[in-house]
């Protein structure tokens, strides 16, 4: 393996600037790595080999002429396959979109590529981002590079596996209920679910529009801040997007963390959290205490209902968002259909996988006239309550610290027959989506099998710079110890 691919994105930026190697050399090194390990890992759905080399050559020319666009110019990245890229197949890992090529590029992807980043390809995921293992992909399961008998998590499992296997310098994924943070935790990486509205959702194939967020997965906190800085901001094409109020995500990194108050919510340290995970996360809290932060116990009662409310609201929104995949507006049409009704039902029944069909069914049920008040409206109120109580807690502490996932990466296929058991594992990640607040995950230890454990930091709206500051402090402390 060419050792340069193990470097962080920040180190690549420095090396490209200093002429240590070219973008073309770096891109070819990553493509060689992809070629070598994709048969085992299956992180990519599409590899854009020739385009990547062409773009790298162009980047080198810009640099040579003193016209480099920015810090990401020439750096090879990859993008989850539910983020549209003009002229490049975007499948959502579903049979129904397996031949769909979008005519436009998502704003977040466009900002990265417009900044000179080199696209290596599109990454595997759970079908329509519904799942926590990347096993529901039409293109086959992705494996965890740290132990190929285990899941990389999901739904952004391809993004996490590609970064962990050194197949790209960083990746974009999406997070609706933990889909960036849980796979990052399972693969020993850093991921940020930004404040809802910080990153434009234009061009992200919608799953649950009120929870969906695009964010970065990287090998370091600094790299993460670099990518998030590049993709943030108001976008005319997404009315829900906003500019973050005058902050720099990079500048606060490296500042001391003394005096910061960190809350530990007892609801996220319950019996369902494995003792090894609890120990590692508590050790992270002790590290912060050693660095001068203050630890306080807090309780947020409504968190007990967050997962149930999340599954009702997200499934309801999914049933509406996925109505467009009917073989007429979008989706490969079933050719055996003999009437318009058959076009809809055959296309959708054959085009969607089991988990997507289940969620559409639950969502349609929750929105139907006999159930709307009892399920959907109550769940919406529960979401409001979760946000209000978390914000209340954030009046007595600056950030909330918890495990990212209650367990570490498990064996592939192990939980497949019981979907709701997997759903319950979202307990730690879902509150950030339901409340729209930002949450960062980074590694804080490993279990006895050597699988990584993630710690999550959640803060107020647009507090990403504080989260990065805290994340970097823990990362630096751990790397010093190791």
């Amino acid at each position: 393996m060419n050792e340069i691919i193990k470097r962080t994105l920040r180190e690549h930026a420095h090396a490209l600037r200093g002429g240590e190697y070219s973008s073309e050399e770096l891109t070819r090194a990553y493509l060689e790595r992809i070629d070598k390990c994709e048969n085992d890992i299956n992180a990519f759905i599409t590899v854009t080999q020739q385009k990547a080399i062409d773009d790298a050559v162009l980047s080198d020319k810009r640099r040579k002429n003193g016209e480099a666009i920015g810090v990401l110019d020439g750096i090879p990245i990859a993008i989850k396959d539910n983020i549209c890229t003009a002229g490049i197949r975007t499948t959502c890992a579903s049979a129904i979109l397996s031949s769909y090529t979008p005519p436009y590029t998502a704003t977040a992807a466009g900002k990265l590529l417009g900044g000179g980043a080199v696209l290596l390809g599109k990454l595997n995921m759970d079908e329509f981002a519904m799942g926590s293992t990347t096993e529901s992909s039409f293109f086959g399961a992705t494996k965890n590079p740290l132990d190929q008998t285990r899941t990389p998590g999901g739904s952004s499992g391809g993004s996490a596996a590609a970064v962990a296997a050194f197949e790209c310098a960083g990746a974009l994924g999406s997070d609706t209920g933990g889909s960036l943070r849980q796979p990052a935790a399972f693969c020993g990486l850093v991921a940020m679910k930004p404040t809802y509205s910080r990153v434009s959702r234009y061009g992200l194939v919608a799953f649950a529009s009120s929870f969906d967020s695009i964010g970065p997965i990287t090998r370091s906190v600094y790299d993460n801040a670099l990518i998030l800085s590049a993709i943030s901001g108001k976008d005319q094409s997404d009315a829900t997007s906003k500019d973050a109020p005058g902050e720099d995500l990079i500048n606060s990194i490296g500042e001391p963390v003394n005096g910061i108050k960190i809350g530990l919510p007892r609801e996220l340290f319950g019996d369902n959290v494995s003792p090894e995970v609890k120990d590692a996360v508590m050790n992270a809290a002790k590290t912060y205490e050693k660095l001068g932060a203050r630890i306080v116990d807090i309780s947020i009662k409504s968190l007990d209902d967050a997962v149930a409310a999340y599954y009702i609201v997200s499934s309801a929104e999914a049933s509406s968002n996925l109505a467009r995949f009917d073989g007429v507006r979008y989706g490969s049409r079933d050719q055996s259909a003999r009437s318009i009704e058959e076009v809809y039902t055959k296309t959708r029944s054959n085009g969607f996988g089991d988990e997507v069909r289940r969620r559409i069914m639950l969502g349609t049920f929750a929105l139907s006239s006999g159930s709307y008040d009892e399920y959907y409206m109550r769940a919406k109120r529960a979401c409001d309550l979760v946000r209000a109580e978390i914000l209340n807690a954030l009046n007595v502490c600056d950030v909330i610290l918890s495990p990212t996932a209650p367990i570490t990466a498990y064996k592939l296929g192990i939980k497949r027959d019981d979907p709701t058991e997997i759903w319950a594992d979202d307990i730690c990640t879902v509150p950030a989506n339901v409340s729209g607040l930002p949450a960062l995950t980074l590694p804080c230890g490993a279990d006895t099998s050597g699988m990584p454990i993630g710690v999550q930091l959640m803060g107020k709206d647009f507090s990403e710079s504080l989260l990065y500051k805290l994340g970097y402090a823990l990362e630096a402390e751990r790397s010093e110890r190791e």
Partner: protein
Amino acid sequence: MNEQELVKKVASLAKLGVDDACSESLAADMKNMISFAALSSESGCFAMSNEKEPMILRQDNVGESFDRALLLEQSYNANDEFFTVPRVVAGGDGNE
């Protein structure tokens, strides 16, 4: 309505085809999902309900397809197969 009838009704609303064999396993899944998604009765969201002004919802029914001849008869401008709509982009004569 029993569970399998519920599955068939919801599948019809969602435009998903469900045969008898499939409806049995989906009925079990639906039961699990609905009980998983039930909020605890101690949840604070129950206190937020507005019982004085309940929402009035229409019944969900999947209707028959429209009658093509009837639609064409009522359209402003039609040919044998389709109704036509005015062109809205600049440069048209407004009736193409």
